[in-house]
């Protein structure tokens, strides 16, 4: 199976998982979105030398992962390219901050190394939080929640259609690459000379397909905004409020109490 097919399969798989969890969930998508935003803001608010505090924030991901039955390893695999980009963050810190902070065994740990790891943690935690949000809510409900939060309708629609367009783009690219490969069996990949026309044609074809998909949405009542939020009842609202309050308190606690640091002190 080629890489594009795997990417298409992954997107469909994420959609399916999100639908299963979103449909059964007793939480409103808005509550999940707010918790994710709070989590991100809390993570970002840590200074670059507060690594132990940052590690405490991973409790949110661990609890959510176990509660929602989300595989961490699958997440690492699916987000591997994003994580690779995250690892590039903070590399410059190694050169600018050479002050030795402490020794680990015989290794001198500089401020640059420490802040780089801290940046990695921030990146990984926030990427994982967004991934968990998508997996537990689904793109339609997520856009609906963003609308509730005051995002302009046009932007929510653009987000939804961009996500849908990804699948169309991958499918068109796959067809074109297969057609190219069948007529150039000795060529590995696409020849550099064909890149320009290939990219242009891919864009035009995928735009045509995306237009048809959009037409199909319009003909089935799509009015420019996602329409589905899931079931509405009192217990769901109560659950959502409790969920939001719980994590609000937890983030406040984790932000100001270095849990991992205290546990370490107790053990040592």
């Amino acid at each position, binding site marked *: 199976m080629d890489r594009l097919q795997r990417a298409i399969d992954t997107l469909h798989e994420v959609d399916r998982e999100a639908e299963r969890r979103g449909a059964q969930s007793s939480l409103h998508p808005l509550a999940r979105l707010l918790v994710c935003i709070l989590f991100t803001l809390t993570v970002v608010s840590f200074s670059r030398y507060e690594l132990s505090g940052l590690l405490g924030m991973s409790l949110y991901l661990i609890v959510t992962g176990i509660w929602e039955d989300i595989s961490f390893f699958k997440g690492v695999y699916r987000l591997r390219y994003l994580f690779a980009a995250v690892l590039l963050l903070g590399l410059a810190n190694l050169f600018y901050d050479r002050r030795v902070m402490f020794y680990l065994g015989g290794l001198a740990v500089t401020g640059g190394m420490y802040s780089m790891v801290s940046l990695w943690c921030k990146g990984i935690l926030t990427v994982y939080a967004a991934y968990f949000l998508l997996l537990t809510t689904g793109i339609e409900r997520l856009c609906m929640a963003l609308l509730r939060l005051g995002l302009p309708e046009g932007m929510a629609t653009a987000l939804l259609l961009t996500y849908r367009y990804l699948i169309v783009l991958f499918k068109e690219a796959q067809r074109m690459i297969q057609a190219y490969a069948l007529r150039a069996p000795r060529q590995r990949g696409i020849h550099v000379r064909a890149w320009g026309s290939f990219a242009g044609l891919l864009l035009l074809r995928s735009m045509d397909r995306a237009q048809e998909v959009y037409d*199909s*949405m319009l003909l089935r009542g799509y009015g420019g905004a996602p329409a589905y939020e899931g079931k509405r009842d009192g217990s769901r609202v109560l659950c959502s409020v409790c969920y939001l309050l719980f994590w609000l308190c937890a983030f406040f606690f984790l932000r100001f109490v270095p849990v991992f640091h205290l546990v370490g002190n107790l053990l040592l």
Partner: protein
Amino acid sequence: MTEIEVKGLTFSYDGCRRALSDVSFAVKEAETVGLIGENGAGKSTLLKILVGLLPDHQGEAFVGGLRVEKRNWRQIREKTGYVFQDSESQLFLSTVYEDVAFGPRNYGYDEQEVERRVREALEQVHIETLRDRQIYRMSGGQKKLASIAAVLSLRPKILLLDEPSGALDPRNRRNLIQVINGLEGTKLIASHDLDLILDTCERTILLFDGKVIRDGDTQTILSDEELLTAYGLELPLSKSRSR
């Protein structure tokens, strides 16, 4: 009662070459009409105009008693089901259930009603067992039936089908003909599969170069070899075999 009425309809994509030229006809309630013609005759264009996908046309078009214009699009689309030529374009969600439920959810029905409509639509095209199947893993025939179900879940009074039998094998084609014949309401079917038209439509409109050439009884038009040949078509296989 007339469900679809077209008067002097003219349309061009680029302002130069006319895709439709002074087309007029009417379709009565519960009538099944075939639109035939060679590639580029204007069949798909005509169907797209009727649901407001191609707005800049001249002449008049009425669907379900409503004039085809921007302020009526939503109402027209609610009572008209349009089945695309390419099912891949029509089905964009991950499972059959999700896709078939997309329309009813957009029209604001509660989840119980959505569930009922999806179940009924899937039963109508006999694909109840595919309810939770992933669309991208389905065959062309299954996708075509799923795309019809996606439209039927809105319980349209009028059905517009664009090349419904395209890329289907004989067995799926036969199944599709049974499904179409079992559907109630007004149907306008654009196809150059003349055997399908023969099996499903009592009346046929022949288009050529954007103009209506003949409008009449299907048996009569599809038996006229001279007429069909003159406008780039051939006798249906069933007719040519019986000669």
